């Protein structure tokens, strides 16, 4: 146990320079794009003049040279202050923390769904390799992989929301229903089903294919033959000896994809009107609300780095050959 704690502590310390580097990089990247919040505001106002614009810039600190702006920003970030959104007229941190639970719950649900389904289908396909079951699963995975996520989302809305009327298609809760306790959980669950499945399908397809290939590879290894020679039943061989070894590549890829899953949630949140960070980020881009956008990006990078840490820990648990010196 001491070994694990030491690894976590060291990895957390390594996170700090990584995250700061990401902040600097994002900052530079965003300022490469033309336009700032003041341009957007002035445009929306309909009538404004150069003096008003200059005054706004001065007010928001946008007139200072970029390195100074960056220095200011970093100084505040270190103090856990993510700045102020002039668009929303409130501190960015509060804005983000308000939206974070919606995005995290959608993301974790989608991630769990994709891993459970992907691993399950992959195992089944490998077990029934070269049968009709295998073919059906492979085709399903290929279709899920190849179909654009936004299109799947729109079709789900059309089918389950409009035509069948089974599920709500927008938002996170029924507005004004005032559900409490378990009823509220069920309500949120019903709202979450379509966006979560939409987001999960693509990743599920990847894990299905990966798991199938990985299982088949492990099936050909010597220790599986040893397990057969011991007299173990097929199920025991598949679920004890093969599955655990075959999971390793899936864990790696799933960890790497936490980042792209966050990216994917932007799209899905937009399609389903999910009140999460994705929508906030999407709006922030068009409003040139850089403080909000930087805050979201910073938070996402922290989530991704933490996810990688979890993956490494999981790896050490699954595979005893990995020992951290």
């Amino acid at each position, binding site marked *: 146990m001491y070994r694990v704690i030491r690894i976590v502590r060291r990895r957390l310390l390594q996170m700090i320079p990584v995250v700061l580097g990401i902040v600097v990089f994002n900052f530079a990247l965003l300022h490469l794009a033309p336009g700032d919040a003041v341009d957007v505001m002035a445009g929306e106002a309909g009538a404004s003049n150069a003096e008003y614009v200059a005054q706004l810039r001065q007010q928001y600190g946008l007139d200072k040279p970029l390195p100074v702006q960056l220095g200011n920003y970093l100084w505040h970030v270190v103090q856990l202050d993510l700045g102020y959104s002039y668009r929303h007229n409130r501190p960015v941190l509060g804005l983000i923390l308000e939206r974070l639970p919606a995005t995290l719950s959608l993301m974790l649900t989608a991630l769990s769904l994709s891993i459970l389904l992907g691993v399950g289908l992959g195992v089944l396909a490998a077990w029934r*390799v*070269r049968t009709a079951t295998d073919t059906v699963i492979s085709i399903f995975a290929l279709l899920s992989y190849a179909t654009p996520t936004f299109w799947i989302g729109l079709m789900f809305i059309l089918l389950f929301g409009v035509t069948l009327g089974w599920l709500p298609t927008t938002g996170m809760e029924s507005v004004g229903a005032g559900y409490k306790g378990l009823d509220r959980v069920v309500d949120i669950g019903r709202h979450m089903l379509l966006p979560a499945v939409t987001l999960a399908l693509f990743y599920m397809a990847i894990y299905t294919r990966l798991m199938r290939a990985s299982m088949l590879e492990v099936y*050909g*290894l*010597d*220790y599986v*033959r*040893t*397990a*057969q*020679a*011991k*007299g*173990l*039943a097929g199920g025991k061989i598949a679920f004890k*000896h093969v599955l*655990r*070894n075959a999971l390793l590549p899936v864990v790696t890829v799933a960890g790497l994809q936490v980042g792209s899953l966050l990216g994917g949630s932007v799209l899905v949140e937009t399609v389903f009107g999910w009140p999460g960070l994705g929508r906030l980020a999407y709006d922030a881009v068009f409003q040139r609300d850089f403080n909000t956008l930087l805050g979201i990006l910073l938070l996402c990078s922290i989530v991704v780095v933490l996810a990688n840490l979890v993956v490494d820990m999981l790896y050490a648990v*699954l*595979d*005893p*050959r990995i020992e951290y010196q």
Partner: protein
Amino acid sequence: MSAILEVRDLRTEFRSEAGTAQAVDGISLLVGRGETLALVGESGCGKSMTGLSLLRIVPKPYGHIVGGEIRLDGRDLLKLPEAAMRQVRGNEVAMIFQEPMTSLNPVFTIGNQIVEAIQTHRDVGKAEARRLTVELLDQVGIPDAGRRLDDYPHRLSGGMRQRAMIAMAISCKPKLLIADEPTTALDVTVQAQILALLRRLQDELEMGMILITHDLAVVAETASRVAVMYAGRIVENGTVREVLRHPRHPYTQGLLQATPHARKAGGTRRKLAEITGLVPSLYDMPPGCAFAPRCPKAQAVCRSTVPTLAVGGGNVACHFPG
């Protein structure tokens, strides 16, 4: 000598897009209680496939056992349902493999894997199974067995892993042990130890043993009888003494001449002979004797008619045995 294993006309095929290969092509074997039979031949001649066929674990989906009988104490294993066959594997017939490095599952401790073997076939609790495992590890000469139990395979050397494999194989006191090249991947000094260990255990447990090897020195040291395989068939069998001293099949003769011998003091250096050519592809077997294309004595009849063991007088499958 009562036979514990009697194999008759065993046939195993590999079917794939490339065609059908007779990996094991009508093999008959006899193993007595406590006796060691060596199965000898080059790589790809079907020795390992014979071993896997005996346990009915030929690789799916390509491998199929298509005919013959495998009688263990009189009972035909090929007629058993799969569930009953699982009761035989690891329990009555056990097998160890060439690569101790990869034959143990890397993510479970060796204790876990041996306990699993015991609990699959014996109705004992975990604690009792662990106690038995420590005894077994002790019996195969693993020092400090009580602690080694909880080591993962990557912590053990090749020789130690092969000992752990052997402990697993003998955990249910099998009647027959199939050892597929058990020493090939090991250092020479470790080889000798493992062979000595196998001989000792065989005496203690009165196991029959099929020793699959390409190493004639190992055969001479360990086995009492030998069957020489070529391209899925047995080409010569007999006692080790007969076959090694007076090989009659040209292939056996070639194998012996290709084996280096230590020179006696003052003796002359003998040139190492090779068998020219390659083993034919199992997907493209010549008609007649499979060895004919490489055989110095081949005649027209060799290229048209497959010689059976009966042709050569019972022990050698050759039209012109030496």
